């Protein structure tokens, strides 16, 4: 067996691919629904916080800014370990997927809040004044006039951040959530072959490449519009 | 006519299907100032940009002091470009450097002058365009006319044999145009060879040695300014001049 054959047998072993395909598909499904939950939680919480901040209540704004800063400054894995290994000491034992969704969702919310807020602040003051002058209330102006414009600006950086944080569902492998990387690692130690890792990497690229392509499309569309 | 400093021979330029320049032939003698006029889209700027290969000619030759710059290697091109100064409509000063650093950069990097030498030369050139006292300011703090004069100094500092001007006053407020034209006049009087694309008809009449009228990628007519402006022969020239005068 020469070098290339051995390389292929180690990294691209069809027999191992076939054997672990069902497990891998289950892992892919787990990754997808985890990512979906993280995105839903992160975006809705982030949007809500940005809107709340728009009302300009000092104390609320202060806590939102602290939240956003901490969410952006803390490594998610630290939070995951604290919640997963620390909280049970208080009698609060949460399943791995829940910990993952809560931590990543909150971290995404921190970033999303900042991105939405940046979008809101870049809406020209005249737009707010026009809304108020035509008899809309603050909330109506926010929802009907400011948010749609802010969302357009926020879209490209938001998709980038959603991509980056969805990928972090791979951290679930550290706390026993059987997503793609867990399946791959387990299979690797069972088979003593690197093929499951290759398979996992391919699975990730298949799952997340559409999001990468979406960032490219948005980039082009916005490049044309400007 | 003595040996031309700049000679354009059978220059053609196509963008895809579009023929922008067709068989342009033009000679600019040493110390001569030639004005190129014509409607927008006539190919004047493209022709000018071919003269230092910012635009790659499709075919033809561009001779600077007898040496062809079309088809020379990229290192030779960089050397040739030192002999051709260019001034742009949009100035294009480097916003992250002081005025004097703008004028020094290419002297140091391309001409390999020492820092002191480059600085001395830069200050002399800034003095020539009347801006020595602004040497240490940032370009964005200057008016448009001042920026354009710095851009001229930047080109002059490299001791070019020819200067190309691509609509040097089009981006300026009317009251700032005069200062730039004065510098150009001074440059001509000192014997610089200049090829100018511009809409400043008054200045052309007063200072140019020759005027070239271009339209549709062709040189339609050329001659001394008094002749072109007073009794143009070609119909297209007449039409253009009556339009800009109106």
């Amino acid at each position: 067996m020469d070098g290339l054959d051995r390389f292929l047998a180690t990294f691209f072993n069809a027999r191992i691919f076939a054997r672990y395909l069902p497990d891998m598909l289950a892992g892919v499904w787990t990754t997808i629904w985890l990512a979906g939950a993280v995105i839903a939680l992160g975006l809705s919480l982030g949007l809500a916080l940005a809107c709340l901040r728009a009302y300009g209540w000092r104390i609320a704004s202060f806590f939102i800014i602290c939240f956003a800063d901490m969410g952006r400054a803390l490594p998610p894995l630290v939070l995951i370990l604290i919640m997963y290994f620390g909280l049970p000491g208080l009698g609060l034992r949460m399943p791995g997927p829940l910990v993952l969704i809560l931590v990543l969702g909150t971290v995404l919310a921190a970033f999303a809040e900042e991105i939405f807020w940046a979008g809101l602040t870049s809406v020209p003051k005249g737009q707010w004044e026009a809304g108020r002058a035509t008899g809309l209330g603050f909330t109506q102006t926010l929802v009907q006039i400011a948010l749609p414009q802010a969302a357009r600006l926020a879209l490209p950086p938001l998709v980038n951040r959603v991509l980056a944080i969805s990928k972090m569902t791979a951290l679930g492998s550290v706390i026993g959530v059987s997503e793609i990387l867990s399946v791959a690692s387990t299979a690797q130690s069972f088979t003593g072959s690197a093929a499951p890792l290759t398979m996992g990497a391919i699975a990730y690229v298949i799952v997340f490449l559409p999001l990468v392509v979406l960032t490219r499309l948005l980039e082009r569309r916005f490049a044309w519009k400007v | 006519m003595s040996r031309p400093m700049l000679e354009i021979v059978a220059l053609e330029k196509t963008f895809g299907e579009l023929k922008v320049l067709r068989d342009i032939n033009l000679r600019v003698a040493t110390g001569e100032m030639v004005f190129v006029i014509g409607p927008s889209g006539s190919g004047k700027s493209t022709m000018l940009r071919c003269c230092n290969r910012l635009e790659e000619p499709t075919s033809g030759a561009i001779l600077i002091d007898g040496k062809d710059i079309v088809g020379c290697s990229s290192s030779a091109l960089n050397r040739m470009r030192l002999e051709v100064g260019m001034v742009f409509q949009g100035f294009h000063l480097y916003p992250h450097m002081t005025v004097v650093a703008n004028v020094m950069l290419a002297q140091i990097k391309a001409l390999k002058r020492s820092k002191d030498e480059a600085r001395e030369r830069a200050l002399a050139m800034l003095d020539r365009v009347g801006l020595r006292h602004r040497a240490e300011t940032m370009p964005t703090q200057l008016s448009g006319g001042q920026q354009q004069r710095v851009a001229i100094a930047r080109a002059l500092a490299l001791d070019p044999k020819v200067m190309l001007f691509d609509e040097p006053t089009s981006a300026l407020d009317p009251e700032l145009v005069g200062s730039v034209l004065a510098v150009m006049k001074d440059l001509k009087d000192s014997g610089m060879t200049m090829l100018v694309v511009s809409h400043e008809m008054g200045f052309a009449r007063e200072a140019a040695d020759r005027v070239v009228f271009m339209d549709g990628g062709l040189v339609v007519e050329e001659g001394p300014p008094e002749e072109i402006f007073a009794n143009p022969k070609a119909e297209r020239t007449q039409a253009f001049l009556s339009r800009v005068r109106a």
Partner: protein
Amino acid sequence: MQDFIRLFFNLEVMAQTLPLLMQGLWMTVKLCAAVIALGLVGGLFLALGALSHRRWLRWPAFAVIDFLRALPPLVLLIFIYSGLPFAGLAISPFAAVAVAFFLNNSAYYAEIYRAGIQSVPAGQTEAARACGLTTGQTLAHVVLPQAVRNVLPDLLSNTVEVVKLTSLASVVSLAELLYSANMARSLTYNASPLVLAALVYLLLLWPLVRLVSRYQRRLAA
């Protein structure tokens, strides 16, 4: 409440494990230095490839960038750390982490550089080339200084991400800050070392995060 303080903010445990964590912090710092330096250089080359007029350079550069953006850094790390030995390449945890995150971050830095270079008007390049500067000189003295300034907040924010990313090195048992903290947690049966690690990250990165926000607001204004 007392349980909470005893388990999460136990000063005694924190003081006891602080030296271990400081050792870990030193490893984190070394790791960051390596990954940031490598990533900044690798990213520049990828960006230049992606901006090239030559198709055979541009397409592979984009393919590499997008592949790396689709792949979670932890997967890349595990692949390099546990996969490469199968190909007969034994690699130290530090090298594995440095290589994996260098690759990952090159892609991110590349995207930032690319945006920055594209934000510099074409006239700047033309003016420099017309003055006889070479492509390299134009890039180094005219385009890059302006490009970097235009995307400074993004470069800074990605650098924050690098520091956070190095915490993943704990997964392959590299004794950086988080690994040390988690080790201390399992030794003391107390989560306070993890909280202490979180505080150290916060202390390190909060100023940078503030700076990024400040910068972005100034650019928007």
